[in-house]
C-alpha cells in the first residue's frame, strides 16, 4: 500500500516548547534556546538539603546578586553541550597537532636550561591555579541559579581542567615523560616564597560562600591578571630567551581566554544593568579581589617580569571592568 501524505496535513501543530513560546513567541527556536531556558526546577522542592537546611535545593539566595530573571545571563556563544564540545574539539585538534609537532621534533631539547627552569618555576605551577579555577567554577555551577549561567560555568570548569592538563603535558615534554618537572614545579607551588601569596589566595577563594562573588573573583579579576602576565607578557620574555616555541603550546590558553572573556563580559554587563545594587556589589567585590590578587601576585611577577608588568596587567583589568560598567 502506498500512502499519499498531503503536505498540508504535515504542518506542525506548534513551533517549539511552551516555555520557549512564552519567552520568544510562537516561532521556531534555536537549539540553544530549547536546551537552556527554564530547565532548572523552580518550585515545589520536597526536602531541605541535609547539608544546608537554610536553603531550598535550588535557591536564588545563595548569592547577594538579585536578578529578576536569571536566564537573562545568556551565553553569546550559544553554547549548549553539543556546540561546546564540538568547538573545543576543534581547538583541541589544533593543540594536538602543535603538541605532536613539538614532541616529534624534540623541540624541548632545543630549550636552554634557563628556559626550562623558568617554565618549571613559573609556568607549570599555573596548573594548580587552574585547579582552583576548576573548583570555583564548579562552585558557581552547583550553587548558581538557572541553566544559562550554570551550564557556562560548568563548561568553564571543565576547560580549566583541560588547561591544567595541557600545562602538565608541557611539563612532561620537558622531562621526557618522567613526571620529574611536575614534582619540581609543585615544590615551587608549595614552598617557593614567590608563590605563597598566590597559593594562600587560591586556598582562600575556595572558602568564599557567595557563588557569584567567587566566580567574579576568579573569572574577571584573577584570570585577567594571570592570562595577561603569564601568557601574553611571559610569551615576549620567552621569545627573547630563545623559547619562542613554547607559544605553540600556550596558544590554546590564549584562544580560550578570548572566547570566555567574551562570554563573561556579557554576563557582567547584564548583571550590572539589572540594578544599582548589583552594580555596587560587583564594584565592591572587584575592588576587594583586585587588591588581594595584586598583593599575591607581586612577589612572583617581581621575580619573573619587568617592574611595569603588573601595571600593564592592571590596565587590562581596568579596561574590562570599565567595559562591563562596573563603577562605584
Amino acid at each position, binding site marked *: 500500500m502506498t500512502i499519499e501524505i498531503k503536505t498540508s496535513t504535515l504542518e506542525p501543530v506548534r513551533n517549539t516548547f511552551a516555555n520557549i513560546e512564552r519567552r520568544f513567541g510562537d516561532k521556531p527556536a534555536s537549539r540553544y534556546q530549547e536546551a537552556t531556558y527554564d530547565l532548572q526546577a523552580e518550585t515545589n522542592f520536597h526536602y*531541605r538539603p*541535609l*547539608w*544546608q*537546611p537554610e536553603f531550598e535545593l535550588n535557591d536564588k539566595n545563595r548569592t547577594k546578586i538579585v536578578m529578576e530573571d536569571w536566564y537573562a545571563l545568556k551565553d553569546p556563544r550559544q553554547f549548549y553541550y553539543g556546540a561546546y564540545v564540538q568547538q573545543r574539539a576543534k581547538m583541541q585538534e589544533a593543540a594536538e597537532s602543535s603538541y605532536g609537532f613539538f614532541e616529534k621534533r624534540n623541540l624541548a631539547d632545543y630549550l636552554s636550561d634557563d628556559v626550562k627552569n623558568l617554565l618549571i618555576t613559573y609556568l607549570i605551577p599555573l596548573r594548580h591555579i587552574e585547579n582552583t579555577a576548576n573548583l570555583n567554577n564548579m562552585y558557581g555551577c552547583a550553587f548558581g541559579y538557572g541553566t544559562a549561567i550554570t551550564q557556562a560555568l560548568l563548561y568553564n570548569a571543565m576547560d580549566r581542567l583541560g588547561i591544567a592538563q595541557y600545562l602538565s603535558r608541557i611539563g612532561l615534554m620537558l622531562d621526557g615523560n618522567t613526571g620529574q618537572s611536575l614534582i619540581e614545579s609543585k615544590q615551587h607551588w608549595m614552598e617557593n616564597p614567590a608563590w605563597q601569596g598566590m597559593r594562600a589566595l587560591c586556598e582562600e577563594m575556595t572558602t568564599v560562600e557567595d557563588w557569584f562573588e567567587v566566580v567574579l573573583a576568579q573569572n574577571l579579576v584573577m584570570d585577567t591578571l594571570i592570562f595577561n602576565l603569564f601568557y601574553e607578557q611571559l610569551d615576549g620574555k620567552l621569545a627573547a630567551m630563545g623559547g619562542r616555541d613554547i607559544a605553540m603550546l600556550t596558544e590554546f590558553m590564549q584562544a580560550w581566554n578570548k572566547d570566555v572573556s567574551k562570554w563573561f563580559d556579557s554576563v557582567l554587563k547584564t548583571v550590572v544593568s539589572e540594578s544599582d545594587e548589583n552594580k555596587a556589589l560587583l564594584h565592591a567585590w572587584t575592588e576587594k579581589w583586585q587588591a588581594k590578587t595584586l598583593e599575591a601576585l607581586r612577589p612572583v611577577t617581581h621575580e619573573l617580569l619587568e617592574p611595569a608588568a603588573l601595571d600593564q596587567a592592571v590596565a587590562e583589568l581596568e579596561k574590562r571592568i570599565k567595559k562591563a560598567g562596573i563603577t562605584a
Partner: protein
Amino acid sequence: MSVRAITPDYKVQARDRVENFHGNQIVYVAWDHHLMFCAPFAYALPPSMTFAELRDQVMPEAFGLHEEFTKINWETATWLLDNQPFTPDLNQSLKAQGVGHKSVLRFQTPELTGFQGKAV
C-alpha cells in the same frame, strides 16, 4: 532512627499538618477487593461531617461507578478504621467517632466479589 544532617537540629515542619487544610481534614476511603478502583480515595472533609453524609453524599460519586455499589447492604458491610474493626455511627461527626486527620477507612462486602467474581 533519625536523620543525620550537618546540624543537630534539622527540623522542618510537617507539610501536611491538619491546620494547613483550611478547616478540613484528610480521610482516605477504600472498598476492599474492588480493584476497579486502583487505589484508596483521598477526601478533604470537615471533621464535623457526619458519617451518613460521607457515605451517602461524598462516596457515591466515585464509588458509584462500580456496578455493585448500589447493591451494597450497608447493614452487613464491615469497616476498618485505621486497621481496627469499627462500627460507624451514621449520625455522629467523623471527629466524634475517632475518624481523624489522615485516617484510613476501609469497608468490606464479602457477598459482593467484584467484576467476574475476581475482586475487580
